[in-house]
């Protein structure tokens, strides 16, 4: 899917935003534009500042410095209750003393909307999240997935310009989570609201987002579409955090020219020319590797099979290449035998798929 154009009138615009808690910098100098109608993910490990950034957008936290505008309006000094944003909390924060309808209608009571219209909007929101008929349920009679839907409906019913979601799927079990991923994506397309989605799960971010900002240590490492982030990681952190990454140690044979050897096999990588040391680390995605000799590949490395995981449609093989254990996935085809542990094998790859990262 094409990413929405973000150069014209971004919905959210952050400029040099910093957040300090005491001596600790939770956010360093964040500048970011998020387009209207985008499904935008903030991806990173815990403690990277993604939730803090989300809370600054919501107005629950105030930035130490920097500016923020939403829908063209500066947000400095605008409290959470007057911002055009609504949030789905990680704990869902369902009000325990109210039933489902009262929870969903909570925000409408502050908007001076006629009673009948408010009731209609609550019913509409219930239908939107597929909870029709459960309006009178008490909060403590809901399952985890239902709570999540109530939290979603409660935020969407206020018709915010931006919906903020703080790891809303992390408390759900795996099957439910995958269903909800596609449902959330479909919902976002249907309502057309900008979604800012916080997650530490890279698969989730890749599957759902128009664009992703990968965060680490209070900084944004890279912003881009899922395919860009995955195929052209800007930093070593992005490369290792997004997707599975195999690491191969290569010896530099001719410094400055990019001539290397991996497991005794020579190869030429101009990207490795600037490496200062005698060794560089090469990163390879599992799906770019082939087991056996592949005519499309220019590089064939000798390997030994150390582990075979049979996963149904996919067979994940772990092989030893010159002392580095790497994994590669192949489809399980009837007739192609599963490799035997301990047997020697060959691994093929194209040198243009190799990512050169900083030498250790």
């Amino acid at each position: 899917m094409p990413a929405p154009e973000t150069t014209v009138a971004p919905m959210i615009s952050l400029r040099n935003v910093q957040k300090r808690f005491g001596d600790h910098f939770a956010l360093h100098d964040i500048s970011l534009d998020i387009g209207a109608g985008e499904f935008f993910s903030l991806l990173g490990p815990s403690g990277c500042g993604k939730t803090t950034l989300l809370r600054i957008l919501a107005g629950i936290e105030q930035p130490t410095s920097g500016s923020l505008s939403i829908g063209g309006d500066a947000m400095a000094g605008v409290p959470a209750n007057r911002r055009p944003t609504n949030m789905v909390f990680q704990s869902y924060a369902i009000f325990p003393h109210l039933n489902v309808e009262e929870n969903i209608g909570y925000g409408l009571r502050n908007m001076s909307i006629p009673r009948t219209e408010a009731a209609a909007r609550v019913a509409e929101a219930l239908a939107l999240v597929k909870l029709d008929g459960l309006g009178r349920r008490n909060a403590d009679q809901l399952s985890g997935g239902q709570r999540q839907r109530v939290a979603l409906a409660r935020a969407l019913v206020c018709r915010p310009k931006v919906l903020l979601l703080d790891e809303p799927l992390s408390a759900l079990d795996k099957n439910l989570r995958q269903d909800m991923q596609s449902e959330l994506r479909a919902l976002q397309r249907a309502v057309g609201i900008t979604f800012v989605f916080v997650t530490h799960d890279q698969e989730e971010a890749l599957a759902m987002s128009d664009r992703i900002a990968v965060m680490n240590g209070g900084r944004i490492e890279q912003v881009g579409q899922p395919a860009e982030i995955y195929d052209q990681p800007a930093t070593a952190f992005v490369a290792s955090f997004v997707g599975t990454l195999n690491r191969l140690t290569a010896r530099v044979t001719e410094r400055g020219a990019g001539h290397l050897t991996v497991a005794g096999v020579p190869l030429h990588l101009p990207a490795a020319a600037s490496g200062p040391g005698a060794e560089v680390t090469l990163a390879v995605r599992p799906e770019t590797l082939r087991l056996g000799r592949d005519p499309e590949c220019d590089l064939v490395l000798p390997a030994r099979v150390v582990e075979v995981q049979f996963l149904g449609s996919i067979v994940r093989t772990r092989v030893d290449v010159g002392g580095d254990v790497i994994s590669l996935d192949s489809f399980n085809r009837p007739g192609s035998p599963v490799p035997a542990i301990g047997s020697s094998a060959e691994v093929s790859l194209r040198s243009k798929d190799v990512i050169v990262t900083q030498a250790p």
Partner: protein
Amino acid sequence: MTFLNRFAGLRLYAVLFVIFIYGPVLLLPLFSLDTGLYPTFPLKGLTLQHYAEMAANTSMIEALKNSLTVAVIVSALSTTVSIPAALALSRYRLPGAAAVLGFMSLPLLIPSIVIAVALLIILLKFLGVALSLWTVGAGHVLICIPFCMSVLMSRLEGFDPSLEEASRDLGCTGWQTFWRLTLPLAMPGVISSLLMGFVVSFDEFVIAFFLSGTQTTLPIFLFSQLRFPDKLPGVLALGSLILAGSAVLVVLAELLRRRGAKSANPGDI
């Protein structure tokens, strides 16, 4: 075998423990129904005559009314002033919060006789206020606050903080959040606090003794009646009624607490 013996020993201990705590109290209703003038065994006969005497004793009823009035006002007042304080201490990182909390708990540690004398001096010497039920009430608010605070804080600290954030996010001001979310959720704690304040004030003797004027509260009235042996059965009858009343209150409070405990962890899945 040894295990069984030990088990039997524990059971005996438990029975003695219960008798030790509740035995003396249960003697009260027993003697209040006895025809004899003095509370001694063997009992002489069954009668409700003491209850009639009690009802006819207008000064005792007057003292009871005074005590009830003071206790109701004191419990409402000390709970009302404690709610914002408990909210502030449990929600925000205030500088000196520990010191504030320590000072608030002081009335629990200082002997009430000391507080009573100090208040008496302040009221008479510095403020020039005449002693009345109002001064008793003021003293009681002082000693009730630490009880109300501890009950309310333990309730407020159990909240998922994102509930209040969600309320703000959905457009409520701080004040609206308090009325629509915080207070309803804190209600079991508020009711416990009201009961606690009521019981502490109703029962209090020393401060009431020092600070009351011509109108007395029930504990002081009962103490003064002990000089007249023939008044004792009426006192016993009143005591039994109060006992029954407080038993009902305790059961109600416990039921409320259990209902509250069920909704205490709203974020759980």
